[in-house]
């Protein structure tokens, strides 16, 4: 088991190098740092000095890959590639284009993100599983058909409308909770409840429908038929046999997204003014802060790969038939 995990972690290295290369090419080769400086300074007639000064300020005044003027190992390390890309491997994100320490910002902002993402995941999971189980219990009745229609309709609504609608109904019409903002400690609760509700409701359509197929697939298996033939009641069949086995794909799917919860929900956070990583990313995109976007790309890939490894491990834990080799 540990050998497997170590091997998987080693596999992750070439992938991260690949991610790094892609971002490097995107950010520095397709457009030179000069282009970036001109864009940031925002004027057509920027002087060459201003561009040089901007580049020096942000550490973009080095050669891309190989510094012929430097001494010794500095030939390779005093370059943009080393400074801006390779250092990401040590989780050294450097400073943003506006001069803030990205690593510090990320550590600060991941907790509000988690405070939304985790409740959304857990409550959503509970609701989706119960609803899907209910549909399966009443399968081939009008409840089933009506629910599926409802779910497809809910799937067809853009997430933006859930947020706008939730904000309008709960916040503006009923004045129950503040529309946006954030606070630390227990006071955060009243700011979090609306985004969490919106997140859960927005996920019901897709989630419940997926779980319903998992349950139905399981409910049509031979062992379920045997259980019914034995004379077990439908309730017991569903909870003891169907639910237990259908939980395998559900749980492994959840494990895969666990690490990504830190990344936060982009749109939700920026709509509700939550100072999490999602709104951080959006702000960076809007301000065209390339350093932050680069850091988030790398962080996202690391977490994704972590999720993949966790998925594989969780398979062996819930399903004894699967062995890692």
């Amino acid at each position, binding site marked *: 088991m540990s050998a497997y995990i170590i091997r998987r972690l080693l596999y992750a290295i*070439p*992938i991260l190098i*690949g*991610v790094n290369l*892609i*971002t490097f090419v*995107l*950010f520095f080769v*397709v*457009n030179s740092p000069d*282009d*970036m400086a*001109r*864009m940031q300074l925002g004027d057509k007639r920027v002087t060459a000095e201003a561009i040089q000064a901007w580049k020096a300020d942000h550490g973009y005044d080095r050669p891309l890959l190989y510094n012929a003027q430097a001494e010794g190992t500095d030939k390779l390390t005093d370059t943009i590639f080393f400074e801006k890309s390779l250092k990401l491997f040590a989780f050294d994100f450097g400073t943003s284009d506006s001069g803030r320490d990205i690593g510090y910002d990320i550590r600060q902002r991941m907790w509000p993100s988690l405070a939304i993402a985790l409740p959304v995941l857990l409550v959503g999971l509970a609701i989706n599983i119960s609803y899907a189980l209910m549909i399966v219990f009443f399968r081939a009745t009008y409840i089933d058909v009506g629910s599926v229609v409802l779910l*497809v*309709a809910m*799937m*067809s*609504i*853009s*997430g*933006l*409308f859930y947020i*706008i609608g939730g*904000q*309008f109904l709960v916040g503006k019409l009923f004045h129950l909770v503040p529309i946006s903002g954030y606070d630390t400690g227990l006071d955060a609760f009243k700011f979090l409840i609306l985004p969490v509700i919106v997140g859960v409701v927005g996920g019901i359509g897709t989630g419940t429908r997926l779980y319903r*197929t998992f349950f*139905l*697939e399981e409910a*049509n298996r031979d062992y379920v038929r045997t259980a019914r033939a034995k004379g077990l009641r439908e309730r017991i069949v569903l909870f003891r046999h169907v639910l237990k086995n259908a939980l395998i794909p559900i749980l492994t799917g959840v494990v895969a997204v666990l690490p*990504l919860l830190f*990344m936060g929900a*982009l*749109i939700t956070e*920026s709509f509700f003014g939550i100072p999490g990583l999602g709104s951080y*990313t*959006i702000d960076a*995109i*809007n301000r*065209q802060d*390339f350093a932050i*976007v*680069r850091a*988030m*790309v790398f962080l*996202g*890939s690391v977490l*994704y*790969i972590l999720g993949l490894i966790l998925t594989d491990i969780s398979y062996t834990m819930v399903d004894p038939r699967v062995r890692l080799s």
Partner: protein
Amino acid sequence: MPVILTTDALIFLLIAVALGYGVYAAQHEHLRAPWRSVARSRVGVAALVVIGCYVLIGLLDSMHFHPRVEPVAASSAAPAATDAARADAGGAAAAPMEARYSTQVLSVLDVILSGLRERQEKTFSAPFATHLFVKEPIEQPDGSIVRGYPPLEHGGAHLKDPSRRGFDIAVRTVLGAIKGLLVWMALTAGLVWLVAHARGETFNDGASAIWQARTTVPWRVLLLTLAVMLVLGFVAAELAAGYHILGTDKVGEDVFYQSLKSIRTGLVIGTLTTLVMLPAAVILGIMAGYFRGLTDDIIQYLYTTLNSIPGVLLIAAAILMLQVYMTNNADQFASLVERADLRLLFLCIILGVTSWTGLCRLLRGESLKLREQDYVQAASALGVRHGTIISRHILPNVLHIVMITVVLDFSGLVLAEAVLSYVNIGVDPTMNSWGNMINSARLELAREPIVWWSLAAAFVFMFTLVLAANLFADVVRDAFDPRLARVR
């Protein structure tokens, strides 16, 4: 003078591909059977009619041209010349009296909707309003100035007495419905005749067979859906001639016009993305599964790497870079439309890059299975070349997976456009799209009373398309993947 934008060309290419696939599918029973079962599904047919209406509008909007500029004399003779024509005429004034084309790019849809496009108001107005939504100083006949809601320039301007608006709307609705029903009856008669002819029955027998749903293809559902769409369309057209039926936005543009123009953007994102990613996904996926070994490792590495970058961030990074490029090379683009179009295409490509991995992985798995099949083994033992094996034995057997993915992806992509535009990494801000409509309307939500019509319009148009696409995708999936259909 016709103009073919890059996305237009690709749309026509897509249609050609679709037609080619249709011809191919018609000759092969294993592809024809699932489509036949799609055509027999009531939900499928109804969804298809709705999607068809959208596609029709999208296609009309994809035929672009430079409008011909009227000679100067003519336009100065007509004082009611529109803004656009006036601007163009100004440019053409110095030119000799030969055929001149404006630099403006219009589509056929623009011409059909020219009334809507040109009837601009000053700023917000509610649906069916006769007065502006915001108070402005109005000069009274006696010279005094009162703050009030000024009347609209176009919306409801034909009314002599604004209090008769309800009656006028009712009359126009009925008129539109009658027109729509007349067109529908003409189409129905044609269809009934065709069906009766095919069944070898008289017209009356054919009609009653359709009406009692005794036909294998649910023509009745098709006709009913068509009736709804036609009546809605004609009523909207009739009303839009006199009012802004969905209101106007901040700069006074008709929201109904914007919604219709956004259809093309949504369809382009939903379809071209797939067209762009399809070759890479199919070729690489089959290669990985068929050749295995080193090829497989490289391709798997490639898609795992791309997949591990969060999609939104990759798109953001790519679009930011495109913006940098466009700002620094602004002179390369002849017009704003071309620039917006290029950005749309680029968005499709980058969305394709983030979404091809799923299909690629599916195809790899399927090819791995297929290459062990006896007939593939036999072919390879007989010395058939790899290329031939792939095109003869592997490709036809994975086509259903491709088909299902294409249809399933569509609605997700349409929804993604809205989200991306909200983050400002979607289509160009000058382009009409549902995402841009939502984005600009969002800023007005704080107003009191609330400006809701832009959001509502974007919601209705998007919801209809995505719902139809989702329902259609379900039918297609059930038809192509019988295992799932049994389970569900």
